[in-house]
């Protein structure tokens, strides 16, 4: 650890963050054997996490034409690498079981691990890209990697899910590219042709002189395009299938990380538009889409019969809340949005960790076939109960606090919008507790064989969520306040 951190100022930390997954991915593609590769996967994500954390403590590399590190994306990178690391720990025990029952063959295991690292690389690249074209390429790469991962079991359902994700994801990606081209077109008369007109830090300096009409159209395309990847209604159709049919570690990474990465792209463009006085305010568009997703997903939660699909809808709901909060803007709502995003990533991935093991033990994902978990598997069962309490927004867990901040900032500025917001939250709350009640309590149903699970990532996340609900360390608060100010 010391060696790497000491090197960080000399060897640029961002390159390390990007290089480790590439090297590890190449190695994992060729190395055989579960024991070695699963550990190498964990080690690589751990080193990436260390490199990301070093960004907080050492002088940051200066941003160039391609890469950028600022106070905003450091938060995202740290969250991304942290959940990437804990998920790789969970993945090691999850995948062992999948190999045992023969759902994955050794060659697919190599493919799986290599793709996991490629996905980490793509997401970190998207978060640190300073060039809007590079950011697009990275998000495209992340999308394609996850498509392959979702289809990895090659069942009917998995292929349908992967196909749907491919079609909708590609359309979203295509719309986002069109928006990116329009941004370039708007920049070109002011900044001249060439690479500079796609560099975000230069764009934000000159954006005040861009043609506002072109920026408006560009933002609509970007919001729809990247919004598809965020899973905002009505472009969410790929999300429940992709979460339900892929390996559970991928569901955790999709919900906890990839949705955030897409949202980060939207935020960057929102900042561009906000810096141009004559362009439309991007906020109301985001508020509408966020609120729509929240309400839609909250009602859809009641009709779910598959446990992973249910939590996928809950992800749509929470991405709706986060988009809503960032759309409202202002220091308090942005702070709430950032906090909610962090808490959601931690909680949702924890839920998927427990759901993954539960589905493996029971051999099914059907809600009706899972009962009485707290009796048969107390550690997993209570972990799920805690996770659902957290995600539903019960005090004193972290999500309660961030939702409370979102609601109170909405009441202060747009009281009318707070009504549908609170209604959506309550509807979702009811649905989640109803389902959790049947899954966790009552007479046990299904297999009761002991779990071979790694509880550490699950409870580490839950402890962080609980801790954040009780006490937020002042440096973290200051940092989030500062970032919230940047977001405008």
């Amino acid at each position: 650890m010391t060696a790497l951190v000491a090197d960080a100022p000399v060897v640029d930390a961002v390159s390390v963050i990007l290089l480790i997954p590439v090297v590890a991915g190449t190695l994992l593609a060729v190395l055989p054997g579960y024991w070695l590769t699963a550990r190498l996967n964990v080690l690589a994500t751990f080193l990436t996490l260390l490199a990301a954390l070093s960004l907080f403590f050492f002088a940051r590399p200066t941003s160039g034409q391609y890469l950028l590190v600022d106070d905003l994306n450091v938060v995202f990178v740290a969250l991304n690498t942290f959940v990437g690391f804990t998920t790789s720990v969970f993945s090691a025990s999850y995948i062992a079981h999948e190999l045992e029952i023969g759902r994955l063959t050794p060659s697919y295991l190599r493919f799986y691990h290599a793709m996991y690292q490629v996905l980490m690389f793509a997401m970190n690249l998207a978060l640190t890209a300073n060039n809007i074209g590079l950011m697009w390429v990275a998000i495209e790469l992340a999308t394609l990697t996850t498509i392959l991962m979702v289809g990895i079991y090659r069942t009917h359902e998995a292929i349908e899910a992967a196909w749907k994700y491919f079609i909708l994801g590609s359309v979203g990606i295509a719309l986002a590219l069109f928006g990116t081209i329009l941004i370039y077109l708007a920049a070109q008369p002011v900044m001249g042709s060439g690479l500079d007109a796609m560099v975000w830090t230069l764009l934000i300096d000159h954006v005040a002189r861009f043609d506002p009409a072109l920026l408006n159209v560009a933002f609509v395309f970007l919001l729809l395009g990247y919004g598809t990847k965020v899973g905002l209604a009505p472009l969410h159709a790929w999300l429940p299938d992709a979460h339900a049919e892929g390996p559970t570690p991928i569901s955790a990474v999709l919900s906890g990380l990839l949705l955030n990465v897409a949202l980060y792209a939207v935020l960057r463009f929102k900042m561009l538009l906000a810096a141009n006085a004559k362009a439309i305010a991007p906020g109301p568009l985001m508020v509408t889409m966020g609120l729509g997703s929240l309400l839609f997903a909250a009602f859809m939660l009641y009709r779910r019969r598959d446990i992973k699909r249910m939590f996928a809808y809950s992800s749509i709901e929470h991405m709706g809340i986060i988009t809503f909060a960032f759309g409202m803007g202002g220091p308090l709502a942005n702070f709430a949005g950032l906090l909610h995003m962090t808490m959601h990533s931690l909680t949702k991935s924890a839920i998927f960790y427990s759901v993954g093991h539960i589905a493996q033990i029971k051999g099914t994902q059907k809600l009706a076939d899972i009962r009485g978990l707290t009796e048969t598997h107390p550690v997993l069962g209570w972990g799920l109960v805690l996770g659902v309490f957290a995600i539903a927004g019960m005090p004193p867990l972290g999500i309660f606090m961030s939702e409370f901040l979102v609601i109170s900032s909405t009441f202060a500025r747009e009281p009318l919008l707070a009504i549908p917001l609170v209604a959506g939250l309550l509807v979702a709350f009811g649905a989640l507790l109803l389902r959790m009640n049947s899954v966790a309590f009552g007479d046990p149903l299904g297999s009761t064989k002991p779990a071979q699970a790694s509880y550490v990532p699950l409870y580490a996340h839950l402890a962080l969520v609980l801790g954040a609900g009780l006490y937020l360390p002042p440096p973290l608060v200051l940092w989030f306040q500062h970032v919230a100010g940047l977001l405008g």
Partner: protein
Amino acid sequence: MGSLDFDIAHLFAGGLVLVSFMMLYQDRLYALLNVFALHAFVLAFSVGWQAYIQDAPHLFITTALAIVFKGIIIPVALHRIIQRLGIHREIETVVGIGPTMLFGIGLVALSMAVMLRVTAEADRLAREDVALALSVVLLGLLMMVTRRNAVSQVVGFMSLENGLILAATGAKGMPLVVEMSVAFSILIAFIVIGIFLFRIRERFDTVDIQALDRFRGEQR
């Protein structure tokens, strides 16, 4: 910029929209592939012309890619897949040809109305190219939603991507265009042909998306 340069660029961009319309009413897969090859060739001419008038030799890579990869390799490969799967029958369209064409005309009108209005300050050539490119993108989307067959959806997606490349090359001096076109092409080939079609063939004996729909996760 000379007016001849401008007119020829327009001719190719307009031609691409026209070929997109031709793709909309093809009801046989082989014919659809032939028209798609034509689409790729028109794009190649358009990009090549842009490379010439913008004096941007790197765009010739995109031109070559459009001809060799999209104009020849992909159609031939898809042709073979169709043969192997024995699905050269009629394409099942979700909506009739007539309404689809009318809707397509509406989309072109929409993209003209929107893009020409908002790009008033942009470069004149780029401006009209982008309007035509948006038409191609929207027609590609239309094709994807009006077809049920996996092969024709992929063709729709590739025509959509051609529209994006038209827009990117029309925007003068846009960086990373070549990289984007290379990435797009490789990934399409890789994903679509290599994995999806073979897996779908392996498991379903059909590439009709409707058959896939039966396996939705939540039916009782």
